[in-house]
């Protein structure tokens, strides 16, 4: 049984122009100790999927439904208070994009790491600080930074603090939303190595949100490609990365300039669609070089066994 099972997750936002279909029928499983990479361009619904899982929603939610089962508990049925006290941060936590720049400048970082322990577990200050120090050391930082302020730390150290915050309650699954997007390549490499070590040693599960397919391969056991609020392809990294089935995945891989090959990167014509009025049929069809009549009318289901892709080209018997 998978650790996290998401079925037909929907999150729409109300705006003056109409409903934004940010997350539109998204389904995936995350196995225990494994990482699912959620890859796509900005505005495709990656971060909205994370907000939906953690139930951290803005006020203008138009529709929020689906089934989310975490280790046997159905989460969507829980009331907000129960979700806050028992699930969020305790069982599923998140490293937000750019969170290292959201650390409080006024409070020592150690206290910021310890805070959820005092709130959620009603731990005493001493217990909480002892556990926080353990968490800080666990991400490769020296204990003395507990007393330091955010401005005294480098970007890489702040990012480690933010990871320690996400891990301090010992959740079974952590969402990583572009955890290295503000960092230099060398610092990024060090953080990726840390995440790998934590995954291996503590059999953590991750949902790794990124726009970079190369970086996704550093953690991903499975890869899901999102486009315009939908998952267009999902499967084991061994299948999706070297042998993508969906034309969008192929184009996305082809558009990234590669350091170790002379293959010329190729841009994808056009731009991602407006999620208020997405195209009929397959949402990628206006940019797809292989689109035919059916693609413009009918929404494709998933085809394939291990590597599943929503594309009419893959329909058996075609």
């Amino acid at each position, binding site marked *: 049984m998978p650790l996290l099972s998401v079925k037909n997750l929907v999150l729409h936002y109300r705006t003056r122009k109409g409903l934004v279909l940010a997350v539109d029928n998204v389904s995936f499983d995350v196995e225990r100790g494994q990482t699912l990479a959620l890859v796509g361009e900005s505005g495709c619904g990656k971060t909205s999927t994370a907000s939906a899982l953690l139930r951290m929603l803005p006020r203008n939610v138009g529709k929020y439904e689906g089934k989310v089962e975490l280790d046997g508990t159905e989460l969507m049925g829980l009331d907000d208070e129960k979700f806050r006290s028992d699930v969020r941060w305790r069982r599923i936590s998140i490293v937000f994009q750019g969170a290292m720049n959201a650390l409080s400048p006024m409070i020592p970082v150690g206290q910021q790491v310890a805070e959820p322990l005092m709130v959620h577990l009603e731990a005493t200050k001493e217990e909480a600080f002892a556990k926080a120090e353990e968490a800080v050391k666990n991400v490769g930082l020296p204990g003395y930074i507990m007393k330091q302020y955010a401005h005294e730390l480098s970007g890489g150290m702040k990012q480690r603090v933010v990871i320690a915050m996400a891990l301090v309650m010992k959740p079974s699954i952590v969402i990583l939303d572009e955890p290295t997007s503000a960092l230099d*390549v*060398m610092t990024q490499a*060090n953080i*990726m*190595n840390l995440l790998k070590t934590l995954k291996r040693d503590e059999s953590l599960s991750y949902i790794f949100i990124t726009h970079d397919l190369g970086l996704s391969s550093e953690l991903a056991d499975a890869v899901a490609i999102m486009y315009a609020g939908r998952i267009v392809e999902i499967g084991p990294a061994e299948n999706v*990365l070297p042998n993508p089935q969906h034309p969008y995945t192929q184009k996305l891989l082809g558009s990234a300039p590669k350091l170790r090959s002379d293959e*010329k*990167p190729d841009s994808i014509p056009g731009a991602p669609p407006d999620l208020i009025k997405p195209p009929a049929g397959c949402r990628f069809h206006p940019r797809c070089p292989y689109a035919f009549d059916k693609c413009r009318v009918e929404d494709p289901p998933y085809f394939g066994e291990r590597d599943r892709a929503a594309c009419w080209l893959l329909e058996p018997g075609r």
Partner: protein
Amino acid sequence: MPGPEGAILVLDQVQTYFGLRQAMFKPRVFLKAVDGVSLAIQRGETLAVVGESGCGKTTLGRTAVRLIEPTGGRVLYDGQDITHTRQRDLMWLRRKTQIVPQDPYASANPAYTVFKILEEPLLVHRIGTPQEREDQVHSALEAVKMTPPEFFAQKFPHMLSGGQRQRVAVARSLILEPELIIADEPVSMLDASVRISILELMRQIQEERRVAFLYITHDLATAKHFSDRIGIMYAGKLVELGPVKAVLKEPLHPYTQALMAAIPDPDPQNRFRDLPALPGEPPRLIDPPTGCRFHPRCPIAQEGLCDVEEPALRELRPEHWVACHLAT
């Protein structure tokens, strides 16, 4: 130094220091953002300058077109010394050099239409009649493939996507028909699928109009595909310089090697091994390490040499320069 003859821009041992006072009554210290960089850009070529944030690459670009006055060394534009020329005597340079900024969301005046954004440089330099200016704006929009130009000219920046805004920024940099364009991280804010189209556009413009580009970036992979030569900067110094193919095929400086190793290509096997990553962080530019600035992080540094003596750039392969005592 690497081929200054006939170069459009020559930097000769350029230093740009910023004076800082860390606290009242404390003596001023200097942040050595650019410290003795020499390079030359030929007409019509693209030189990429690659480095991590805070290595001085943006300051280098701004010094190269005298938006900042260097504290030492010389800047020559087309053979003319402009190191300490007064700003008001540099109007001719402002016409010949242009900048494509990093952030397409912050760099365009939100109250101006695309037409006004593009017309402004022409007005500043008092070029053409209104009809001629309109024609120039339209042809600049066509050059960046925003067609029909009449349609896009009347838009405001907020009506455009990030990629389209960056096309406007490129059009604006072209409208005065410059000889040199400084592109400072022109695509780092854009999505992968759009990024390549902007870089392709710049490459095409460069080939058609023989414009020279100084492409400033942290991204080795795009530098590889869109430039002729590449310079690697670390802590205010140029550590390696040469043809792109040569440098990336056989990086000679340990820093360049480490930088390349830290960038993963999509490969499902990656998750089973650690990325080779150097410990530590780039030094503070107020008190950089003695000797080679990279020695505290360098896997092959030799005591008594690298921590004492500063390595000079030397031409180890034809046209391929490196500043490392131990590179062979």
